[in-house]
C-alpha cells in the first residue's frame, strides 16, 4: 500500500574496482557456493522466478496471496497483496480483490463505485480503473517503502553490469537500506546464486527481510544485522564473494574487509553522493585493487505529447495571400503541428508528476 516518493538527492558516484591480491587461500570457494533453496510458498507470486512455472505469462492468473502492482498512472503505483475479501480504496473508487482473482496480470479492473473521497481529480462512481501488473524489481523500486535514500534504475542497472553479476554469483551488500538494489542483485544471481546483505540498523534489516519474504526472494537473500564499517564482513566468508557493493558513509573503513571477502578477480563497488567519499574510497582501494573507475550516471526522461505550436501567422487577423513562399511555410507548419512535442521531463525519471488524471 505504498506510494512512490520523490528522491531528494539525485547524483551519486559509483567507484568500481577489481581485486588483484585477494585471499589466495580461498580462491576456490567459487561459483558453486550454493545454499539449499527452500521451496517457495506456493501461493505467493515470486518476483524472480526460481523455476519456469513461477514466471508470469498470459495464462497465469492472479491468485490469492499474489503480490500485484496496482498502476494508477506513471507516478502513482502501489504494491498490494491479494486476499479474499480484500479491498483497495483510492481516489478512483473502491476495488474488491475478489474481482481480480482469475484475471491475467496486465488487466484493467474497474472500481465498484463509491469514490475515493479525498482525490479531487478522481472519478466518483464505478468508472475508475487501474491496471494490475506483475511485480518486477523495476516496479518494486517505484513502490517500496523508503526507509533510506534508495538507488534508482539507472544506478542499479549500471552497478549490476559493472559488478559482472551472472546467475550463480555470490554478492555481498552493505547497507541493505530499503532493499531497492538488493532485489535487482537477487534477480541477477538467481536461481542458484546468493545475496548476503548487511545493515547495522536492526529494524531496517527486519523490514527488508519482510519485504524479501513477501516477494518470494527469501531463498536468494540473507539479511544480517552487522555494522560493516566497524566490524567488517564476517571472517568465515573470506573469499566467498564474486562481488561486493558498499553504500556506506565511510566506505574506506570497509574496503579492506571487502578485499578479504572477495574472490580473486572479484569486483567491488562503492556508491557515494559526495566527492570526498569517492576520493577517500579510491585512495583506500589503491593498495589491493586495480581497474579503479569512477562513474556518474544520470537518466534524462522525455514525455511525448501531441501538441500544436502556435504558428507565426496565428496572431494575425487576416489571412495572407497565397504567395509561394508563405504557402510552403503554412504547409510545413501544418506538418509540424501534427508531429509530437518531445518534452524533457526530468533528469531523474521520477520527478515532475504529470498533469491531469487518466481515469474517469
Amino acid at each position, binding site marked *: 500500500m505504498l506510494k512512490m516518493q520523490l528522491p531528494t538527492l539525485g547524483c551519486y558516484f559509483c567507484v568500481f574496482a*577489481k581485486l588483484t591480491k585477494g585471499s589466495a587461500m580461498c580462491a576456490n570457494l567459487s561459483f558453486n557456493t550454493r545454499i539449499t533453496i527452500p521451496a517457495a510458498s506456493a501461493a505467493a507470486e515470486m518476483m*524472480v*522466478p*526460481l*523455476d*519456469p512455472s513461477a*514466471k*508470469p505469462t*498470459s*495464462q497465469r492468473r492472479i491468485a490469492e496471496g499474489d503480490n500485484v502492482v496496482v*498502476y494508477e498512472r*506513471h507516478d502513482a503505483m502501489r504494491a498490494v497483496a491479494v486476499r479474499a475479501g480484500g479491498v483497495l480504496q483510492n481516489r478512483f473508487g473502491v476495488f474488491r480483490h475478489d474481482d481480480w482473482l*482469475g*484475471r*491475467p*496480470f*496486465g*488487466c*484493467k479492473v474497474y472500481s465498484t463505485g463509491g469514490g475515493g473521497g479525498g482525490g479531487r481529480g478522481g472519478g466518483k462512481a464505478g468508472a475508475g480503473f487501474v*491496471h494490475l*501488473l*506483475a511485480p*518486477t*524489481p*523495476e516496479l518494486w523500486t517505484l513502490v517500496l517503502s523508503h526507509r533510506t535514500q534508495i538507488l534508482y*534504475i*539507472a544506478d*542499479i*542497472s*549500471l552497478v*549490476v*553490469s*559493472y559488478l*559482472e553479476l*551472472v*546467475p550463480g554469483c555470490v554478492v555481498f551488500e552493505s547497507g541493505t537500506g530499503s532493499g531497492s538494489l538488493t532485489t*535487482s542483485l537477487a*534477480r541477477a544471481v*538467481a*536461481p542458484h546464486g546468493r545475496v548476503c546483505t548487511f545493515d547495522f540498523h536492526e529494524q531496517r534489516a527486519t523490514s527488508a527481510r519482510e519485504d524479501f519474504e513477501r516477494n518470494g526472494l527469501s531463498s536468494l537473500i540473507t539479511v544480517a544485522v552487522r555494522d560493516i564499517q566497524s566490524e567488517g564482513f564476517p571472517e568465515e566468508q573470506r573469499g566467498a564473494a564474486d562481488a561486493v557493493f558498499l553504500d556506506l558513509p565511510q566506505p574506506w573503513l570497509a574496503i579492506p574487509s571487502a578485499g578479504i571477502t572477495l574472490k*580473486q*578477480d572479484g569486483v567491488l563497488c562503492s556508491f557515494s553522493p559526495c566527492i570526498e567519499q*569517492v*576520493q577517500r574510497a*579510491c*585512495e583506500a582501494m589503491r593498495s589491493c585493487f586495480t*581497474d*579503479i573507475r*569512477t562513474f*556518474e*550516471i*544520470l*537518466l*534524462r*526522461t*522525455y*514525455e511525448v505529447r501531441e501538441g500544436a505550436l502556435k504558428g507565426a501567422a496565428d496572431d494575425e487577423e487576416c489571412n495572407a495571400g497565397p504567395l509561394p513562399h508563405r504557402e510552403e511555410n503554412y504547409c510545413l507548419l501544418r506538418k509540424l503541428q501534427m508531429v*509530437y512535442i*518531445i518534452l524533457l521531463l526530468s533528469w531523474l*525519471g521520477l520527478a515532475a508528476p504529470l498533469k491531469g488524471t487518466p481515469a474517469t
Partner: protein
Amino acid sequence: MISNHYVHTFQNRDGASGDTIVEALIANSSTFGKKTVFSQEKYKLKKQKKYAPKVLLRRPSTRSICETYFKKSPARTGFMRVDALSLLLSMANVGPYSDVLVVDMVGGLVVGAVAERLGGTGYVCSTYLGSAPSSIDIIRMYNLSSDMTSRIVQAPLGDLCSLQNSFNASSVLKDSIQAEGPEPNTVPVENTEPSIPQPVDTTVLDEKAQSSEVQPTNIDISEPTMDEQINQDDNSSLDCKGNDVSSIASKSLRAGKAPSPEKMKYWNEHGFSSLIVAAPGHEVESFVADLLPLLSYSAPFAIYHQYLQPLAACMHSLQVSKTAIGLQISEPWLREYQVLPSRTHPHMQMNAFGGYILSGIRIHNGDACNGIQ
C-alpha cells in the same frame, strides 16, 4: 601458430596474466632464438606492450564487450553504450527462466548479454524480418557455455506472428511471410564473414588507444590475423582450462537454431516474458506494433534507438493504441571521472552518443478482462 584467436581463449579463464602469454609466445616463436639480444628484447617489449601489462586479460563480460565495441567500432553496435545496454536488460526484467524476445541489429551484442543473464535457463529468441537473420556473431565474444548458447534461438518474425492465433488480427506478416521456409538455417557463427561494415579502422584505433593510455580492459575485437613472427601451430604449452577451443566451436553449432515447435506453441499460448529491440537506423513503430502482441500481458519491453524521434513516434502510437502503459523515453548519461590526488575531474569523452530507450509494459487493452483466450 598462436594466433590472436587462441589468445582470445585465454579470456575465458579468470586472470590469465599477460606475462604468461608473452612467455608462451616467446616459447612458440620459431624466430625468437635466432634474434640478437637487442632484437629479442625488442620483440619481447613489443609483445609485452600487446599482451602485458597494458592488456590485462579478463573473463569477458557484457560490460567489457560492450565497452570495447563502443570504443573501437561503435557504429557496429549502434553506438550502444554500456549504460544503455544495462538499462535495456533491467527494463526488460531479464532474469532466470525468462523467455526474452529480441530484435538484435547490433551484431549480437544484446543477444549475448541476455544469454549471459539467463545463465542457461529460459530462452532468448532472436527474431528478424525477411528471409535472412541479422548477424549475431558478437555472441562468440561472450563467455557462454554450450548450455547457455543452446538457449539462443532464431525465428523469423513471420513465423512467430503466423502461429499466433490471437484476437489481434492486425499483422500483415501472416499474409506476406508465411510462404517462406519456416526453418531458418543455424547461423554458422564461426564461419561468418567478418562484418564490420563501417569505415572505422579498428586496428588503427586499437593502437592509438594503447599508445595514449593504459587500457586494461581492452579486448581485441579484430578478426584473427596472421602474426608474421609466430609460425608454430602449437599451443600445447598453454594450459587451456575452462572454456577451450572446442567449446567455442560448439557455440557456432548450437547458437541460433530454430526453436522447437513445442516452444513455438508455448510462446504462442503464454507469450514472451519481455521484449528488447535494438534496431538503430530502422523505423521501429511498425516493428513494435507487430512484436507487442507476442508478449504476455504485464510483460515489460525496452526499445533502443540512436535517435529520439523514431522512439517518440513509437511512443505516441502506443499511447493512442492503449496497448501499453508506463511509457517513458529515457536517455542515459554516463560520465567517468579521473580520481587522483589533487587532480580529480570529470572526463567528457564517452558522452556524445548514448542513445535513447523507450520502455513500457504491455497491457490487455480490452475491457473484457475475464474472457480472453
